[in-house]
Structures are given as structure tokens and as C-alpha cells.
């Protein structure tokens, strides 16, 4: 800590804002893994506000076996679920695989997450592996020699509670001040910009989901909900199973971006709130009492949403091999979904290799069931809800079912 000299002690405080520090030369690589998939907009907004241009913010590519082979080989330190194991390849790609080298490798240890269920659940923390993954992976780049330093890269892994906004400025300031030469005020500004960007993005994505549901409601068409962790959106982790279903003409919703508008959730959960089963539409204590983990909580809420929402006639559950967080949720999630006869299919034990043939056969089965039973499922679920569906606008009391 610099000791204040007399000169600095008596120095006049600047009356105008100090000039923005020039960070245009910095190139930041972000490992596109784990919960960066649901918070990437925050990081982009944060860095841009610090003066780092979009071209200088580089994300690693989608996960692939080739990436792991080329850049991550020999750097793994432990055997665990693939979403964590694959991070070595992402780090390696950022260090060795860039045309223009990066100066900083950013891989946050995300401790808690913003969540639509915030305030309705005990906590919104991440899986212990999501938090600690970077510590374990970095070991593979430091154990023999400091690969980051050898490549003139600063490794930055801030511990950050994105679900607890009041803590984020202090956390990022403490961990990144030396890396980006930050002061507190600009950190606060950048954090705000980050959250604004994230909130905007999330709101838009939720609106898109609502538009899909509205279209389904107006046309009496079914859609599919993917019940998975955000990083299953990574083609190398989720193996694009939802893409194959979409190719058959079924719109896809991801639970992370389900619409949470009052009118809609009040309609779906009206009966549950009225009977005292839950306190609010976002309350999941009726189905899951240990509501600490953000992604798990949302999976449970997504399952509840799906079982009630008429046009979600099928839920596809994706889960990675050896996922300890998903393990206790398999049966409850399935039971929640199937309570109204909604179709439920699970693709478990996903690993690095895409089980191509197996997926194809199962996708065909799902499509068969969807075409055969969707109309009946929609009708059955509509029967359980009040006629005032907020999705169908003027034709509120007259939604249609396509056969």
C-alpha cells in the first residue's frame, strides 16, 4: 500500500472527473464456459464501459473435442463433469490459439447469479464446481510453469456474486484493480453498465419467448421447453439436441428465458396461489425445499411452468454426465412435468462425444409423440386454467387448438 506523503496528503482533490484511462490497447479473452453463458452480456458491458472496444473482447469458441485435443491436452488436473473438464481447452485456445494475442484472460468465479426467482428462494448460488472450476483449471496451466506469464497474459479470475448486486462493485474492484488499473468510481460505473446490458438482453430474450408462446396460443401449436443449465446451449455440451427438434418445426424455449410477466405467471399459477400451495408464482417451496442453487431452482420453476403452460407439450431435459447438482432433481422434475401429462424426455450423461445415432432415434420418437398427443395435452391443460389467457389478446376467451 503506498504511504501518503505530505505532498499527496495536501494535494487538492480534483474538481472535475479525471480523464478516462486509455485501455484501448488491452485485449481481453473470456472463457465462454459455465455461467458465462447466462452472464456474458454483463462482462461485455462491464469491459466496454472501461474503454475496451468490442473487437478487443474475445470469447473462446464453442466447446468441441478438437478444441480440447488441440489446446487442452495434458492440462486437465481432475476427472469431473464435462462442462468443467472442457475449460482447459477454452483457456488453451485463448492462450495459444489467437491470431492477435490477448493481454488478459478473464474467467470469473461466479458465486451467485441474478435470477427471476430472487427473493422467492433461499439463495441463488451456483454449483460448487461452477464457482471453483477456474481454480481447478488454472492449476493445469501453473503446475509446471506459469503458462500465462510465459505468454505475457494476466490471468484474472474475480470471485463475484452477480446475484447480490450490492456486492459486485467491491468484489470486482478488489480483484481487478491491479489488472485494469481501476478506481472505485469507474468500477461502479462499469458494473452498472454491465448489469444494464445483461438486464436488457434478458428482457429481450424473455419477450421473444413470450412471443413464441403467444404465437403458439394463437395458432394452437405446441412448443418444447429445454430444461437444462445455461451452458447446455453450448453446442459442444448440449450437442444441439434442441436444434434437431426445432428442425421438425417445433419452436424451442429455454427455461432461462421463460417470460416472467405478472399477467402470464398469475394466470398459470392462479390456482396454486389461491389454495395457498405457494405464496407467489415464483415460489418453488411446494416442490423443492432446499432452494439454494440458482440453476437448480430455475430448473424446478421451469418444470412447474411447463406442466401448467398449455402449449409447452414437451419438456426435454439435458444433463451432463456426473452432474451432482442435477442428480437429486431427476425424479422430482419428471414428476412435476408429467403431473399434467406433459411429455418428458431426458438426455442424461451427456459427455464430450455427441451420441449421434442415439439422439436421432430419440428425436424421432419425441416428434412422433409430439404430433400424436400435443393437441390433447394443450386441451387438457387449458381445461385446468381460467379462460382469461393473457397471451391471446383480443381473442382471449377463444384460443384455438390445432389438431
Amino acid at each position, binding site marked *: 500500500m503506498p504511504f501518503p506523503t505530505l505532498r499527496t496528503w495536501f494535494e487538492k482533490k480534483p474538481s472535475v472527473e479525471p480523464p478516462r484511462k486509455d485501455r484501448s490497447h488491452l485485449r481481453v479473452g473470456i472463457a465462454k464456459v459455465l455461467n458465462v453463458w447466462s452472464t456474458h452480456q454483463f462482462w461485455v458491458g462491464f469491459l466496454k464501459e472501461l474503454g475496451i472496444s468490442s473487437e478487443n473482447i474475445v470469447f473462446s469458441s464453442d466447446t468441441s473435442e478438437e478444441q480440447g485435443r488441440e489446446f487442452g491436452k495434458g492440462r486437465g*488436473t481432475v476427472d469431473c463433469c464435462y462442462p468443467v473438464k472442457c475449460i482447459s481447452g477454452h483457456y488453451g485456445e485463448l492462450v495459444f490459439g489467437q491470431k492477435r494475442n490477448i493481454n488478459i484472460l478473464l474467467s470469473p468465479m461466479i458465486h451467485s447469479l441474478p435470477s427471476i426467482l430472487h427473493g422467492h428462494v433461499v439463495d441463488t448460488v451456483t454449483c*460448487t464446481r461452477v464457482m471453483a472450476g477456474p*481454480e481447478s483449471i*488454472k492449476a493445469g496451466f501453473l503446475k509446471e510453469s506459469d503458462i500465462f506469464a510465459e505468454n505475457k497474459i494476466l490471468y484474472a479470475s474475480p*470471485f463475484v456474486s452477480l446475484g447480490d448486486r450490492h456486492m459486485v462493485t467491491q468484489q470486482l474492484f478488489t480483484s481487478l484493480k491491479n489488472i485494469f488499473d481501476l478506481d472505485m468510481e469507474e468500477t461502479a460505473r462499469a458494473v452498472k453498465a454491465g448489469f444494464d446490458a445483461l438486464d436488457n438482453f434478458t428482457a429481450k430474450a424473455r419477450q421473444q419467448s413470450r412471443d413464441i408462446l403467444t404465437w403458439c396460443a394463437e395458432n394452437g401449436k405446441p412448443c418444447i421447453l429445454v430444461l437444462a443449465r445455461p451452458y447446455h446451449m453450448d453446442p459442444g455440451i448440449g450437442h444441439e439436441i434442441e436444434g434437431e427438434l426445432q428442425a421438425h418445426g417445433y419452436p424451442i424455449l429455454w427455461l432461462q428465458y421463460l417470460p416472467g410477466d405478472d399477467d402470464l405467471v398469475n394466470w398459470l399459477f392462479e390456482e396454486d396461489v389461491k389454495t395457498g400451495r405457494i405464496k407467489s408464482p415464483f415460489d418453488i417451496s411446494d416442490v423443492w425445499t*432446499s432452494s*439454494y442453487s440458482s440453476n437448480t431452482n430455475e430448473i424446478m420453476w421451469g418444470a412447474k411452468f411447463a406442466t401448467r403452460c398449455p402449449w409447452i407439450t414437451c419438456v426435454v431435459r439435458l444433463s451432463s454426465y456426473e452432474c451432482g447438482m442435477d442428480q437429486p432433481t431427476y425424479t422430482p422434475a419428471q414428476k412435476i412435468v408429467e*403431473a399434467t401429462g406433459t411429455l418428458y424426455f431426458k438426455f442424461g450423461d451427456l459427455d464430450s462425444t455427441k451420441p449421434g445415432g442415439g439422439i436421432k432415434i430419440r428425436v424421432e420418437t419425441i416428434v412422433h409423440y409430439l404430433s400424436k398427443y400435443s393437441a390433447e395435452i394443450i386441451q387438457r391443460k387449458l*381445461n385446468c*386454467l381460467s379462460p382469461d389467457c393473457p397471451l391471446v389478446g383480443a381473442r382471449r376467451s377463444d384460443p384455438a387448438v390445432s389438431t
Partner: protein
Amino acid sequence: MAQLTTIGQLPLNQPPVHHYTAYRPRPFKREEREKVTILYGGLTWKHERLVQGAMHNMKYNAEPLPNIARDDLDAGKELIDVGACCPTIFTTGSLVNFLKKEVAASSKEEVANKYVFLTAGACGPCRFGQYHESYSMALDGLGLRDFRMFLLAQDELDQGPSGGGGLEINLPLSLGLIWGILFGDLLTDLEYMTRPYEVNPGQTDKVLQASVEYLYGVFRERPDHGAKYGTLAWHLLTNYFTRALREVRKMWDAIEVDRVRVKAKVKITGEFWLQTHEGERNYNIKRWLEQEDAEVVAPPVAVWLHYLLHPTIRKLEHRHSTSKHPRIEEALLHALERIYRWTYNRFRNALAGLPNELPDQEELRELAEPFYHFELRGGEGHMLIGKALHAYHHKKAHMICELSPYSCMPNTMSIGSMANVIGKYPDLLYAPIEVKGDSEVHALSRCQMILTEAKRRAQDQFDEVLKKTGLSAEKIRKYEERHPEVRRATYKVPHRGYSGTAANYVIHLAEDRGLARA
């Protein structure tokens, strides 16, 4: 396109929807207390017996579940979703097998009315936080949804009456449980530091058994000092417990030990349940190590409790706090942490200072910091790395044996980070053992490889000390004959900078007791 005709009401032929509902125990009422037995488990038989004393003292019927057996693995696997970490499977299986036996002897209804299960819970992203979800799934599978299970939050000493008043988690109960656990730790330390050196085989186990029974009585007869601050003050200040420990010390006085036996000292770390467990479910590894000529440093539960209440570590727990006086709360927490350590040391001192000191949590944090952030939650967090480095720097053990359950989320992460630690400290002997429940030979042979090197180091150290002091085994024996007190199990050998007991003993005799000059 068909138009909807029936919205908002179920058509006649549509069965009503029954939404899935999570398990909720029916109330355990105050008036049932005398007829109901509280089941619990997950610790060693010593801890469990002392905890039972505290529960009996509060007039609860309480019984630990039988120690986990081999077939509990299958029973657990059968009833919960595939892929659970092994502590979840074992503990579920143990409960399942117990209940099955009881049902066979009576009926489901009788079992559901006769027993309730109390389990630790409500703390965070994994560890225990979700155990009860598996238990409830198993209860469903057994057709015992009526059976009652309650969670004991580890960070609230006064949770009031839960679910009907049959079980009241108040200060006297919580303090009794915690004191019981601390005493279990103290005895465990004595046990492991004595048994490898006992002259009369089996004597340590006998004295241990007698000590546990004696202390069980001490807990059962604990005087009542009210439900609030009176009882807190009494527990902290009374000499009721220290007096009892001094009695225990006298029992251990009778054990003769031979500390010149050279043993590799092996510190056990790992996932909480697995490291604490003594039995088949961690391949009986502590006993196995002793048979392989090692002295085990067993992991006390007290370190985990210390971690839970440490103010620096707890900061995150307060992120939702709406307290008007956060500073006062912080100060209180600091005071509490100091009182905790002071209390533990008081108990240690009553046992001649023999049990190991609690490591300084700040130091553990600092040691682990370059490798593992202290706020990373789940499992033992940064402590696994902190403890390994603590033992290494302070020369408290020759080797670390980390017990990691297969598919444990946090443990895999700290084992990964240990690669970095080993890179920086290549001479740190570290054996991570993955426990699957069925790969015993493989796991033990892995440990054996590192142990061979640890034993070599222990022998080298001992030889070095003999050389340095000019002592010989014969000279030591003669001295011991003249001073039999040094061969008592309760004789405290100070730590003189060596990892091994034998080396410290020799240097102590040579320098502190003047044998080198003799």
C-alpha cells in the same frame, strides 16, 4: 382447427391433476416425545454416544443408526436417482436398511409413529443441503412417506420448536450436542495418538470405550441451567466438564506406550462425511494405515464448526442481512470465535494438552489463497488445501491422505487445484483417494505407494535425530526405566520441529530432559 369449448373447468372425463409435492414431515408433537425415538447418524460411534448422552439429558429417546455396512450401498442406490455422491448413498442406504428391518418386525404405521430422523441440513450449494431430498425419495420408495425427518441447521443454535414441538432445538440441546461433538474429537485425538504406540495391544480401545461410557454419563447427568443465557454461561464457565476430562485423563494414564517406534504420520483430510467416518465405507482406512505402521491424525469435526462460525469466512453469509447493527454483530461473532477456541483449549488442557490444537482459520485461508479462494463454498472449501499446507509447513505430518467421494463436486475441484500446490511444493506427500464403495484394493494400493515414501522419511528423520543427539535406543530404554512417566500415554511430548512422534520424542528427551548431556 377445433375450437375450444371447455375452458376453466375440467370436462367430466378428465381426471383431476395432482401436482407433485415435495416431502414435508407431519408434525412431531410435544406429547409424542416419550413414545418416539429420534434417529441420527453420520459421525463416529464415540461422537454419537456422547450426543446420545446430551439427548437423553434433555429427555429425548435417541438412537444412532447402526454403523454403515456394505449392503447399505445397494440399498441406497436402489432407491435414489443414479449418480449421487457416495455419502448420500451410504447414509440413505443406512436409514433404508434400518427402517426395512423395523418394518419387517412390526408395521409401516408403527415405524412411522415410533421413529423420527434428525439430520444436518440447510447449508449451501451441496453438502447436506440436498441430502434430505434423497432421503425423502427413499422414503417414497419404501412407502414410508409418513415417516418424519427433520433438518438441524448447523448455524442456528436456537431454532425453536420444529414441526409440532416434539423436537425443540434450543440452546441447551444445541450446546449439549456441540459439547458432545467436541468431546468426541478430543477422545479421537487421544485414541489415534496412543494406539500405534501402545505396549499392551487392545488397551487403548478398552480405555477409549470406558472413557466414552463415562462421558456419556457426564452428558446424561448434565445439570439444567435454564433455556437461554444462563445455560450458555454455565457451559462456558463451569468446571463440570473439565473435571470429567481430568478423570478421563487418569484413565489414559494407565496406558503404557513405546514412542520409539518409528511411524509415518498421516493426516486425513477430505470430504466431511468420508473423513470423519470410521468403518467400511472409507475402506477402514484409518485402521488400515495403523496396520501399515502409520500414526493417523484424524480430522476433528471441531475444525468444520470453527470454519462455519469464523467471521471472515462467514462474511458471505451476511450478504442478505438486514441487521441494523452489522458492526455489533460482527464484533459478537469475533468474540464468539475466540470463546470457541478458548473453550476447546480449556478442554485440551484438561487432557494434559494432548489433543491437537485447532488450526488458525486465518492462516488456513492465507495458505490456500494462491490456489483456492476462501469464499468458494461447498465441501471443505479452501480448507483442504489450507490444511495440507498447514501440516506441511508446521511439520505436523509426513503425508496427507485426502478422502474424496466419487462424484463429489467440491472435492474434485480442490483435488484439481492441488496439482498447482504440488507443482510449487513437490516434496509434499499427497495421496488423494477416491472412494467409490467398491474399489478398495485400487485405492489402498495408491495410498500404499505414497505411504512407503512417508515411512522412509520418518525413518530418515529418526536416524538424523539419533545422530544429532548421540542417543541410542538402548540409552533411551534405560532412561525410560528410570523415568517411567515418559512412557505414559498422557505424557506430553512437545512438537520439536519434526513430523514424526519418535523423532520429536528423542529430541525432547535429549534436549529438554537433558538425556544428551547425561
